[in-house]
């Protein structure tokens, strides 16, 4: 497969984590090019690329940049490196292997937006990755590409790597800004959106690591060339994380729209141990389950939405025939219970009751009536929470219940997990 790649096109070349090695593959030429083109022209190329945010919500990047109010300064860029979505590890790969590609993308965006500061908010657990970025940042300062009068222009921009301290909710853009301001990381009411009133009440763009890592290519090759790698509705390429019951888990960069879930599964070596495919979760822990009937769906925003799920943050978790979907749903519900920030009642209380009930169900101690209660709890949460965390805490479990109703019902009053014991008997 001789597909053109963007994010991983330099894969295997030596020394990419140093500025010297990155320059050898043409690194930082795109930043110079962007400055020659001027901010407006860069924004136009990003719009032409059709690039949509890779952090989960898939909002068109150029459009988001266009929301910044004219003439209001200072402005900030916040880079979302909080990657905590279960099943996602692509931003980590982009940071570990291509830190300068990310920093070049950050500087291009900061230049296009005329930001005075770019903050990279990285989850606390990524300690090693934070140190990699800090080292790369020092090199960028030493090369005169951050700080005062960057590359001889009148543009000043500080580049700051900021470590979080363990809270999934800080990946939500407004919680991230509160955390960056030195507060508890809890979501803010929107509107106003960050583009209007963000960090310190000033216009702020929040973009994901992968989103920004595409910019050097877009500036060098042009927005149209980037768009053409994918399809009209899903331009460009994407770095998908494949994990779970596959032979070779890992990240795979593929063109969007023209690749299917089955292709991606094939790249990961197929279902492991010669077993049958049972289910998959695209997008990370927040998204709805899909079944074998969806394997030929292309990695296209609309096609996946029509199938009842979303590409979210670009993960694919594969489950083989031995998997208990009630167990998987219980783990995800526990995750949301643990990560609920506690600000609003439907999420704080809902995830608690959801989790208590799911544990009873998984252990075979829940009744059929309780299964109906589960649906009621989720209905009371979805669409009623302050931020999307609470809504998404219901999506996997309810979609699994709909697709695997019999499996959920078989758990009721069974006294144990019927799937695990069936699997145990077969093994």
């Amino acid at each position, binding site marked *: 497969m001789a597909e053109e790649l963007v994010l991983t096109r330099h894969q295997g070349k030596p020394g990419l984590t140093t500025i010297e090695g990155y320059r050898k593959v043409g690194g930082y030429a795109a930043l110079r090019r962007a400055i020659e083109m001027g901010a407006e022209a860069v924004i136009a190329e990003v719009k032409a690329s059709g690039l949509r945010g890779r952090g989960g919500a898939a909002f068109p990047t150029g459009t988001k940049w266009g929301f910044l109010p004219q003439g209001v300064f*200072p402005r900030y860029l916040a880079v979302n490196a909080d*990657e*905590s*979505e*279960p*099943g*996602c*590890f692509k*931003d*980590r790969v982009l940071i570990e292997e291509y830190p300068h590609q990310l920093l070049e993308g950050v500087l291009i965006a900061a230049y296009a937006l005329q930001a005075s*500061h770019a903050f990279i908010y990285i*989850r*606390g*657990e*990524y*300690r*090693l990755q934070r*140190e990699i970025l800090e080292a790369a940042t020092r090199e960028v300062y030493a090369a005169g590409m951050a700080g005062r009068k960057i590359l001889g222009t009148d543009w000043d921009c*500080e580049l*700051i790597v*900021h*470590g*979080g*301290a*363990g*809270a*999934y909710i800080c990946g939500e853009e407004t919680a991230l800004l509160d*955390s*960056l*301001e*030195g*507060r*508890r*990381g809890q979501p803010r009411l929107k509107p106003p959106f960050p583009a209007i009133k963000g960090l*310190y009440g000033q216009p702020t763009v929040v973009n994901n690591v992968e989103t920004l890592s595409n910019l050097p290519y877009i500036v060098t090759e042009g927005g149209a060339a980037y768009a053409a790698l994918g399809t009209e509705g899903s331009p460009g390429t994407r770095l998908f*994380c*494949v*994990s*779970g*019951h596959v032979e070779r*888990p*890992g*990240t795979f960069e593929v063109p969007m729209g023209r690749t299917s879930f089955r292709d991606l599964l094939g790249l990961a070596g197929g279902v492991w141990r010669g077993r049958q495919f049972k289910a998959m*979760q695209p997008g990370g*822990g927040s998204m709805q389950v899909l079944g074998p009937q969806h394997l030929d769906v292309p990695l296209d925003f609309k096609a996946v939405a029509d199938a009842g799920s979303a590409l979210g943050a670009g*993960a694919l*978790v594969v*489950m083989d025939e031995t*998997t208990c979907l009630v*167990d*998987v749903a219980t*783990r*995800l519900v*526990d*995750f949301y219970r*643990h*990560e609920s920030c506690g600000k609003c009642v439907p999420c704080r209380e809902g995830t608690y009751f959801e989790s208590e009930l799911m544990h009873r169900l998984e252990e075979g101690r829940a009744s059929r009536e309780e299964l109906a209660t589960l649906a009621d709890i989720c209905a009371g949460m979805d669409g009623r929470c302050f931020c999307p965390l609470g809504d998404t805490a219901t999506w996997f479990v309810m979609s699994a219940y709909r697709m695997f109703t019999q499996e959920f019902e078989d758990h009721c009053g069974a006294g144990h997990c019927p799937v695990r014991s069936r699997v145990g008997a077969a093994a």
Partner: protein
Amino acid sequence: MSDRDGAVPAADLDPAVVARIRELRTLYPLARSAVLPALWAVQDRIGYLPAWSEEVVGRELGLLPADVAAVASFYSMYFGRPVGRHVIQVCQNVSCALRGADDLLDHLRGWLGVDGEGESPDGAFSLEGTVECLGACGGGPMMQVDRYSYESLTPERAEAILTEIRETNPEGPVGG
């Protein structure tokens, strides 16, 4: 998040840490933004956040100690009490669970002599109880020890890794 009885006078804090906090303060448009990095600077030096660290950080950044404490308590990675010399996290989220994370965790609990979560009797390790996805799902089951992750583990391999860490880094976290 606090350790009121074991209070140590703030004067005992390494001056290099105070200097670091003052430097951090100047990086941000508002000093308050330096709270998280300042707390990290203290914890990196002494392994946890004693109650007096809220006062030191508050004093340097112009915040009330209670305000600093309220922020610190929100985040799961700040420790209010001393912990083992190496912190072990075994991810229990879906991708790792599908590949045997529960067995790995059970095994390590037994091997370390830790009931659920907490310190091993020799003080070398702290095992965390609830650990969510650590962004190494392609290498499940995995554990993170201090700042490094160890992937595609079997119980035997995990034991061997921890044994080596205990012997080669007796003083504290791997990598400083």
